């Protein structure tokens, strides 16, 4: 069959599963007074449509910041404004100031879901297709298989079309950024990534790799000649994009400060809820949240994030090629997820997303990783009433990956890049068959996750520890993530470059 038909089949399957998941519940459905993320998005449409720009991020009588105040950068606000215009055309009740709080109806749900689908088709899906077409090695069938796996990735589908968010916009824009850099269009890539950053500040997790890659490239071209001009052009693009996005807020110096205050709520503490990162897990043993002062917490998280991110960034700076770039993206997002301030569970999506792109050679760890991440979002999804789509999409993704990528067959030691571990353990345990250990570990983790999922859904926790199961889930996930960040850092720092991926290096 021709390529275009195979690719279109993948897209259609992706779109069908997305829309089918959207039939289910959304976050905060029927739960007054605060509802959930769905109501937050609707509220932002209401605020941006009815209030003037300078009031969007401020606490006024018309805009109560305690009720889902805007806490994403301006591009999200503009997007909400556009959606609000459409909403007003269809049914003005949806965006009535104050009166539309908690508005829930079937047609409104359809409208909101349709906005997600629209931006998905516009931004995310073309980026995925182009990525698979240009940057995947292997035959065209392998490219199609990769595209299918990415498009059917349960995390994004469940968060965007179930819980309700617009992650596909920021992830899509970041992906366009990667595409741009990969094809050598640095300006386009920086533009796209800057837009992604202006859509969701979580993309800061990936900003350091982008910066180091571009800087490294410019340095390689010679800082006194072409490289300098290139750097100047890139910086200009970035600054102009920022200026354009923030233009309405630049008139008054108080505005940008307030926006930044909303984007980075340092007042809210080290973490909220149960999230699979260091602080939450550490909190089980030592109550650091109450033990240390706010400033110390801030400093500690900053220091540790920097510690874990510096080696990979420096390596990328010295060797700016695509493979290092991808690894740096994963490492950077993982480091931020594990050690940063006020991390939300959904941020793991950023790290997992780039793991999907690392290509066939790494897929065992990839699959493993994707699974673990996904599992750490189980409590959130159960709360939203999305158990059925969770089970179906994750099983489907698991079987699809196993079938198409024949996961466990190809995990020879070389494939797993266990050379590093080999070197380390050769002295103590020379007879170790590492690949078999990895396989056993995979199945063991899978079983453990399945058991925990089952218990967290169906069993009642003991009264003394009401949060037992979510905490266990977070801790298990955290341990895996820690293992992964160490592993990926080792791969990036110690591996020689893959010969296969020479295709599109600049």
């Amino acid at each position, binding site marked *: *069959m*021709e390529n275009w*038909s*195979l690719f*279109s*089949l993948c897209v*259609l*399957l992706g*779109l*069908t*599963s997305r*829309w*089918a*998941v959207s*039939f*289910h519940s959304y976050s905060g459905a029927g739960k007054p007074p605060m509802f959930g993320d769905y109501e937050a998005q609707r509220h932002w449409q209401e605020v941006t449509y009815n209030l003037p720009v300078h009031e969007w991020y401020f606490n006024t009588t018309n805009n109560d910041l305690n009720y889902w105040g805007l806490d994403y950068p301006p591009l999200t606000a503009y997007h909400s404004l556009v959606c609000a215009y459409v909403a007003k055309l269809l049914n003005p009740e949806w965006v009535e100031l104050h009166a539309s709080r908690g508005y829930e109806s*079937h*047609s409104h749900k*359809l409208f909101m879901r349709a906005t997600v*689908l629209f931006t998905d088709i516009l931004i995310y899906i073309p980026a995925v297709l182009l990525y698979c077409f240009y940057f995947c090695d*292997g*035959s*065209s*069938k*392998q490219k199609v*298989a990769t595209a299918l796996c990415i498009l059917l990735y349960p995390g994004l589908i469940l968060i965007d079309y179930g819980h309700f968010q617009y992650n596909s916009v920021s992830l899509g824009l970041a992906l366009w950024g990667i595409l741009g850099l990969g094809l050598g269009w640095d300006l386009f890539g920086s533009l796209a990534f800057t837009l992604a950053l202006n859509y969701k500040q979580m993309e800061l997790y990936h900003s350091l790799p982008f910066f180091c890659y571009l800087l490294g490239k410019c340095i390689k071209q010679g800082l006194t000649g072409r490289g300098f001009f290139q750097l100047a052009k890139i910086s200009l693009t970035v600054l102009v994009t920022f200026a354009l996005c923030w233009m309405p807020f630049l008139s008054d110096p108080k505005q940008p400060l307030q926006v930044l205050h909303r984007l980075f709520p340092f007042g809210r503490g080290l973490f909220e809820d149960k999230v699979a990162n260091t602080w939450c897990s550490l909190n089980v043993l030592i109550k650091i949240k109450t033990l240390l002062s706010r400033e110390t917490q801030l400093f500690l998280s900053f220091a540790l994030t920097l510690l874990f991110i510096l080696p990979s960034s420096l390596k990328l700076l010295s060797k700016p090629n695509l493979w290092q770039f991808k690894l740096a993206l994963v490492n950077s997002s993982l480091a931020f997820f594990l050690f940063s301030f006020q991390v939300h569970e959904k941020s793991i999506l950023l790290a997992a997303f780039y793991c999907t792109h690392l290509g*066939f050679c790494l897929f065992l760890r990839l699959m493993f990783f994707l699974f673990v991440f996904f599992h750490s979002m189980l409590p959130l999804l159960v709360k939203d009433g999305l158990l*059925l*789509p969770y089970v*179906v*999409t994750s*099983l*489907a993704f698991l*079987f*699809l990956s196993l*079938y*198409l*990528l*024949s996961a466990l*067959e190809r995990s020879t030691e070389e494939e797993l890049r266990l050379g590093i571990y080999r070197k380390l353990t050769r002295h103590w345990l020379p007879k170790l068959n590492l690949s078999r250990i990895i396989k056993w570990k995979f199945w063991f983790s899978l079983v453990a996750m399945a058991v925990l999922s089952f218990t967290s859904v169906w069993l009642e926790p003991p009264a003394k520890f009401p949060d037992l199961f979510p905490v266990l889930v977070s801790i298990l996930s955290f341990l895996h993530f820690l293992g992964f960040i160490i592993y990926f850092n080792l791969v990036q720092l110690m591996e020689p470059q893959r010969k296969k991926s020479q295709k599109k290096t600049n």
Partner: protein
Amino acid sequence: TVMAAPMTNDQSWFYALALGVSFLKCLLINAYHSTDFEVHRNWLALTHSLPVSQWYYEATSEWTLDYPPLFAWFEYGLSHIACFFDKEMLVVPNLNYASPATVLFQRLSVIVADVVFFYAVKECCKCLREDKGKDLLGKPSFILTGLLLWNFGLLIVDHIHFQYNGFLFGVLLLSIARHCQNRHFEGAFLFSVLLNLKHIYLYIAPAYGIYLLRCFCFTQSNAVLVTLGTIVLSTFAVSFGPFIGQLPQVLSRLFPFKRGLCHAYWAPNIWALYNIADKAFSILGVKFRLLDINKLPKASMTGGLVQEFQHSVLPSVSPLATLVCTLLSILPALFKIWHRPNGARGFLRCLVICALGSFMFGWHVHEKAILMAILPLSLLAVDSRKDAGIFLMLSVTGHYSLFPLLFTTQELPIKIFLMLLFTIFSLASLKTLFRKGGALLNPLEVTYLLGLIPLELICEFVYPLTVWQKTFPFLPLMLTSVYCALGVTYAFIRLYNSLLTCSDTTKKTKMQ
């Protein structure tokens, strides 16, 4: 080019396709379901709560039992599992009861019953000619599996609209497969079982009857005929046995002729064209003052209710007339396989023609019945390029005519995506299969099929925004039916043509 992953098992792609479509069906559990959902819930309730003697008399709900007894026993079996999901659904007075557990149970029962369909498709794949060493995506068995398992019509009728067609078509396809494998007793048995599950398959009973009599009975000893007769009769006896006393009541439930010529949504058959012609003549007649507007019956043809009414200009059509037309339309095909059987392929072709003929000329035909022609035609489509072309015409048109079944806005993207999915798959795969020898569809056919896109845009997007939505709400349905009726009629004529010319070529080779 070979698939990325080496297949450890030659058949693993089959299970991948089956599992994939099952996952999709699970995701559709929360979709819209039609009144057919309540119909089956009611049947679960009445078979569970009432004694056998009451099954065909029960009339608390308007959805009385109108399938043959074996299906009632099937529902009875299901009701015992339903106990574990929600006991309330088995209470007969609980009309329109649709708790989440009920929906889950009923949807899962359809998904699980589809296992019969999977097995049947596997058996059908065995009947195909395979060339070794071909790329997986170009293998006839792969394409057939995709065309059957992922059939758009089955997906939306069974898993959204809600019915048990997958299970029933599984029995049909299994019976066909058995005939292809020359296991005729099993085939006949399966078909008798099928008739006792849903009597709509009477449409294709003539094909079975003629084929079996011709090929099987008269060429071998009388003992064969007797065995066959015993199998069929004993199946009917087991099924109708407990109801022997209430036979008239059962038959009146099974064949309700009080319903109108056209089902509410106007199946795209000859009568749709006939009705349109009648309407056109009456409008023209009034315009040119040939007819008196007061003498005409009210314009209830465009209404959605199921009624009997008279035509205004052309002669009215009675059930007997449709029966005669149907028989006339399938008689030539039956004669053909009587004189020149042509083996299992000829039988299959005749079966499709019988199904399509009954669809075209039958009384109160539901557009879902087009599936009875499309699914067996898939088997022929992967074998010959002429049939592939006819299949493409019929399947795209037939599937499009099912669109009005899902009229909710929420299901609109799903039906468009799934329709595109199936159409692109069938077009691309059949094109690859019959790469040599030119295009499968001629330009006229391509134009007709492309015309479905503006039709869809007009009917679902443009028309609802116009003024006429209030005054003539059923105009889009009428347009859809008429447009599709043209395609279906064309496919019917081409099928007949291929049947007649097919036997002509065998005549030629014989003479040489």
